[in-house]
């Protein structure tokens, strides 16, 4: 029986040790907002927060985590989509198909948690998620809006 702290709740489940955190979230905890995209930590669709840090959950075995760590998924980012990133995304209609956006939002929120006013260069460097629809420019604008740096040089 494994125990994790996910979105503020301690959850217990039985699973093989090498099961990636992603598949525990999706298949055992029914938290399907976190997506499978590549399985090799290349695309970021599976991004969650572990103690506030963005982490790609598809290639981390569940055995690498314990209930002392706070895991937050897109479903737990805010109770009502009120996180500044979610609000900015809504205002700018950032998502297209939306499939990568859970991971994109989690990566952006983690960036702001560490760097509340990132420069454009920092945003481009730090958020490395893949979006095939091509929302990148609205993602940048959304992060700047959430950070209150819209129009700032950088």
């Amino acid at each position: 029986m494994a125990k994790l702290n996910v979105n503020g709740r301690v959850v217990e489940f039985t699973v093989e040790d090498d099961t990636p955190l992603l598949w525990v979230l999706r298949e055992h905890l029914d938290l399907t907002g976190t997506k499978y995209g590549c399985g090799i930590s290349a695309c970021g669709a599976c991004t969650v927060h572990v103690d506030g840090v963005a982490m790609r959950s598809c290639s981390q075995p569940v055995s690498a985590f314990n209930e002392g760590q706070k895991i937050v998924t897109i479903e737990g980012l805010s109770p009502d989509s009120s996180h500044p990133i979610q609000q900015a995304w809504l205002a700018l209609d950032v998502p297209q198909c939306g499939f990568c956006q859970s991971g994109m939002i989690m990566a952006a929120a983690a960036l702001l948690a560490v760097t509340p006013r990132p420069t454009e260069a920092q945003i481009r460097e730090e958020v490395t998620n893949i979006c095939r629809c091509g929302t990148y420019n609205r993602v940048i604008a959304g992060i700047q809006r959430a950070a209150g740096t819209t129009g700032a040089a950088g």
Partner: protein
Amino acid sequence: MNAISRRSALALGAFTFAFRIPAPGEAAAQTAATPEVNAWVVVKPDDTVIIRIARSEMGQGTLTGLAQMVAEELECDWSKVTTEYPTPGQNLARGRIWGNMSTGGSRGIRESQEYVRKGGAAARIMLVQAAAAAWGVPAAECSAANSVITHRASGRTTSYGAVALAAGRLTPPAAADVPLKPPSAWKLIGQPVARLDTAPKLNGSQIYGMDLKLPGMLNAAIHACPVFGGTVTAVDSTAALRMPGVKRVLRVGDNAVAVVADTWWRAQKALEAVNITWNLGEHANASSAGFAEVMRAGLDAPQAAVGNRQGDAAAAIAAAPRRVEAVYGYPHQNHACMEVMNATAIWTPERCEVWTPTQNGEAAHAAAAEAAGLPPARCEVHKLHLGGGFGRRGAVHDWVRQVVDIAKQMPGTPIKMLWTREEDMLQGRFHPVTMAKMTAGLDAQGQVTGLHMRISGQSILAGIFPQNIRDGRDPVVFQGLNNAGGEADIGYGFPALLVDHAMRNPHVPPGFWRGVNLNQNAFYLECFMDELAHAAGKDPLEFRRALMANHPKHLGVLNAVAERAGWGTPAAPVGGQAVHRGLCVTHGFGAYVAACAEVSVSNAGELKIHRIIAATDCGFAVNPQQIAAQVEGSFVYGLTAALYGECTVKDGRIEQTNFDTYPMMKMDTMPKVETIIAPTGGFWGGVGEPTIAVAAPAVLNAIFAATGKRIRQLPLRDADLRHA
């Protein structure tokens, strides 16, 4: 968790065939309780308007755009609009009342605009009639606005919700008797309204195909022969069957093996433990290099299908004092939708149901029925939200056949099948591979005397709809090169022109890949136009303009980007590096598009794309902010293809298996994009695809301006860009 448990309850209903699974925008499944006004419109007693959308939403915004068009004529309160998908089974049962469900070729809005507007207008007429009848007054004395009907003489009002039930009992007016507003009267069409489907994409509640969960569902992982045409000869599942959660190891068709387990992860782990023996078939030694030789021979083959012939190009070129020739090439590419192929199915001897993200519900339905061995009327497909489509989820439904084949071997059990990224890369339906030999004559003044464009290589239709090939001619090959037609026409009036195609098909299956054949055709033509301008010693813009007198709409978008960029004045250097510009213009999917790219290339050969200016003339612009999103996104898709996109074949199979070997453009290299939406009215052009095609040529022409180097083979990641 509430959303998920509610979904599960709905899914249980779906399992018993009584319910529909929710469509996008959370509208869903309530319509069973509220009769429709007509096929397109349901109004609930609380005035909520549910607009039915037949095309699929895959990010391109068609859901919102089509709803705007219905609502424009319906005169309803836009703030109360939600949407739902009718199912392909319902469309079949009702004589295709919702028309074509195919969502490709940038046709969603332009092909259905008239009948969806008429659908909204007819519903409005019926609602007004119902109110007038209740009041005992002539309908002509009543008007409707913002979901409220007013009898002008008495000032009485009522709402759509109050009369919808009565309206639904009226006989719908004949389409011919339903007038439409002139464009000058539009209030909602043309407005940059917010998308209707954004909120659930912000908190993880949007259910994609991959996320579906049905009661009692098992999960399947699958692996098909990596060599196209190969088959399974033996399966040793001993080890796999001992692994946790595993229920069955199954053969699927003649070329694949699936493991069914309680969870997908366990199924996939067990699949890796299955020992499969393949018969790799006749293509086991095929390679990209080998096929390139086949295509190269086609460049000079005597036999070729003619796409566009104006005058005698060969004679005009032969008589010219100068001849310019260049050979270009475009590789295979995978769509690489962020959501890999997946579907869920349940099969019994009486009925089959499938849940899947699809660009064409009707094609998915046909594939499901065929695989199920059941009449279409006993099958149903529930369209789920797509995590990207780009053409992969449209014409061919190979994955639907697979899941039904699995479900058929386990009657009554819902099976969700999900591919790995690796499977998705290996089992793609690829952008066709082609080469082109461009030959032109220039006279003493540097004017083109004639141009011959010989395309050699793969035909999409030959692979997917071979019945549409006539005398070896695939008309889609000539996209953007046609003489006339309004769909995809060449923008230059050459004195003589020959465009022809020597069809050479490899064993790699082709697909319609966002932008389709316009991608390589614009690359070939527009980079060669730049070569000709250079050979003639002329400015690339002026050289083009001189040939565009009879193509004012092409010229309009080209002028728009040149003017915005400040063509003719030097671009400001960035970080000490000189910035150079390149142009491209084309016409496809009924829209005119152009781009001007601004790039710098360091002495060490490092490319930076700083800014792209893009212009679109799509005739009528329904939602400008969504058009801008499509144009911006097109540069990600198009530049990813130009910079990195290549699937190569070795030993009969695709070599690139994931994003580590098939890289994607990310934010660090994404240029700024300035979009000019310049609709000139009078026609309906598509938006989702045409701009893809101008991305690569504009950048490549700018690279030439910066370095003097011509890139004639994509992708350019392996090119040495150090200054010539």
